[in-house]
């Protein structure tokens, strides 16, 4: 009977009910830089409850009956979009997918007009992906619906970072002092940016590694307004003793030419291989936000190996997005 006590994630042993309104202040989810550690804790805890629903034979609860979620994707996506869609359906919300390529956007409708139309149609939550950094922030100022950023340009991908953190917690129990190494195209990766904010906030020891043309400048200098991370161009040094190794895709669609001599040279110098991984901590887990370019940033034997949790990340993504839908639409705040 003691086993039931262990289901609490991150040491949240407190059994007393707390009103989440005191912790949860967000109307929109744009990035994780304005999240407090208590809020991240709350998301993790709620995700754990949602994860249990996914293990049931009937994966559906009536919580968000009558709420409407609209996905608005100005960029291609497979897993993020279907993950949001399934999350909404598991909570019994109604979901409408707006495919930009076949919508009035091609007739020249502006972002704000499109959003206002969505709102007039009764959207409570708009999930949005846009090639321009800051587009969701602009959107949040014009509509009453809650905006969830599903990736904007180079800027942020908060739901991916939260599902990454949940996956780490499932394997490592605590984020504090966890050695996390992120390897690859850091500067163009919104996943890396959001992960750096959330992981450093929860006390992880984050190292970013990649060729110097793909590393953001000035990250190693302690700055009051930006999280402190270790920066290195040496992959072997970065992987040594790491608890978590995260690979990133080369964002070729966002890169200027000339940043890399060739893909082959990049994969020779920065690919996550079995051999390089053997220097990491014994219990290391390998993560990747997907889509994976096998044998470029990560060896296919590693991506499909026993240390890989890449498919688990996808499952956890549904749970995290359910938790966020619940936290955004489950209570009435100052409306």
């Amino acid at each position, binding site marked *: 009977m003691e086993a039931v006590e262990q*289901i609490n994630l991150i040491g949240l042993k407190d059994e*007393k*009910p707390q009103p989440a309104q005191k912790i949860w202040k967000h109307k929109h989810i744009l990035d994780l830089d304005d999240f407090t550690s208590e809020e991240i804790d709350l998301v993790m805890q709620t995700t754990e*409850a949602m994860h249990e629903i996914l293990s049931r034979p009937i994966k559906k609860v009536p919580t968000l009956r009558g709420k409407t979620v609209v996905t608005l994707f100005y960029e291609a996506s497979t897993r993020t979009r279907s993950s949001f869609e399934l999350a909404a359906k598991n909570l019994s919300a109604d979901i409408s997918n707006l495919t930009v390529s076949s919508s009035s956007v091609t007739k020249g409708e502006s972002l704000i007009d499109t959003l206002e139309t969505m709102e007039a149609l009764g959207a409570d939550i708009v999930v949005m992906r846009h090639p321009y950094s800051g587009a969701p922030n602009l959107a949040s100022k014009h509509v009453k619906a809650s905006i969830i950023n599903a990736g904007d340009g180079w800027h942020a991908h908060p739901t991916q970072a939260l599902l990454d953190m949940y996956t780490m917690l499932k394997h490592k129990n605590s984020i504090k002092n966890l050695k996390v190494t992120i390897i690859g195209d850091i500067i163009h990766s919104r996943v890396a940016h959001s992960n750096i904010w959330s992981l450093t906030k929860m006390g992880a020891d984050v190292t970013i590694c990649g060729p110097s043309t793909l590393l953001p400048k000035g990250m190693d200098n302690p700055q009051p307004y930006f999280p402190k991370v270790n920066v290195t161009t040496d992959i072997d040094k970065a992987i040594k003793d790491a608890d978590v190794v995260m690979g990133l895709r080369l964002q070729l669609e966002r890169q200027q030419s000339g940043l890399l001599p060739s893909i082959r040279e990049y994969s020779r110098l920065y690919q996550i291989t079995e051999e390089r991984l053997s220097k990491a901590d014994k219990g290391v887990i390998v993560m990747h936000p997907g889509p994976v370019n096998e044998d470029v940033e990560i060896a296919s034997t590693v991506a499909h190996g026993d240390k890989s949790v890449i498919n688990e990340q996808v499952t956890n993504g549904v749970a995290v997005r359910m938790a966020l839908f619940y936290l955004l639409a*489950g*209570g*009435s705040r100052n409306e």
Partner: protein
Amino acid sequence: MWIYARLPLAGEVTVRGFFMAKKVIMTEADIKRTIARISHEIVERNKSTKNIILVGMRTRGVPLAKRLASNIESFEEMKIPVGILDFSLYRDDISSQDIPLVIKSTDIPSSVDGKVIVLVDDVLYTGRSARAALDAIIDLGRPLSIQLAVLVDRGHRELPIRADYVGKNIPSSKDEEIEVRLTETDEMDEVAIIPKPGREG
């Protein structure tokens, strides 16, 4: 303006800055006896303990379910599985202000199919939590039957729901609050009745 400070006297509680008379209805010994009686009733009604799962409704139903289980184990010499149910996702007032939004995991140790589920809660009031819990259990499978055990039934039902096992019937006014404290969550065992302060009108 008068500012004075004193500690609450014996028999008083502080409610939002006011000292209120608190009436203790069940003491630690009362709660212990009541739980012992309910454990016997559960076994008596179901004739055997073979298919029973005790499911505690968060928050205070959980320690109560554990206590019932250890009681039954002590006289039936059989392990009784205890589950935890968070029914928040099934509430009908999910969009209103007052509910605790924090949800936690549901953890039922085995499949509920063909089992006798005994839901355990501290207070039965409007019946809305029990309704939510029923829906939550039915979504998990098809139990043989579902029964409800509560420590306190305070009346004022808003739904056609009754408990199978009642610790104590406490007829109360809607202007009063019934407070159940348990050692596991509140450092003491006690059921008290407190007038709600600051109600307008």
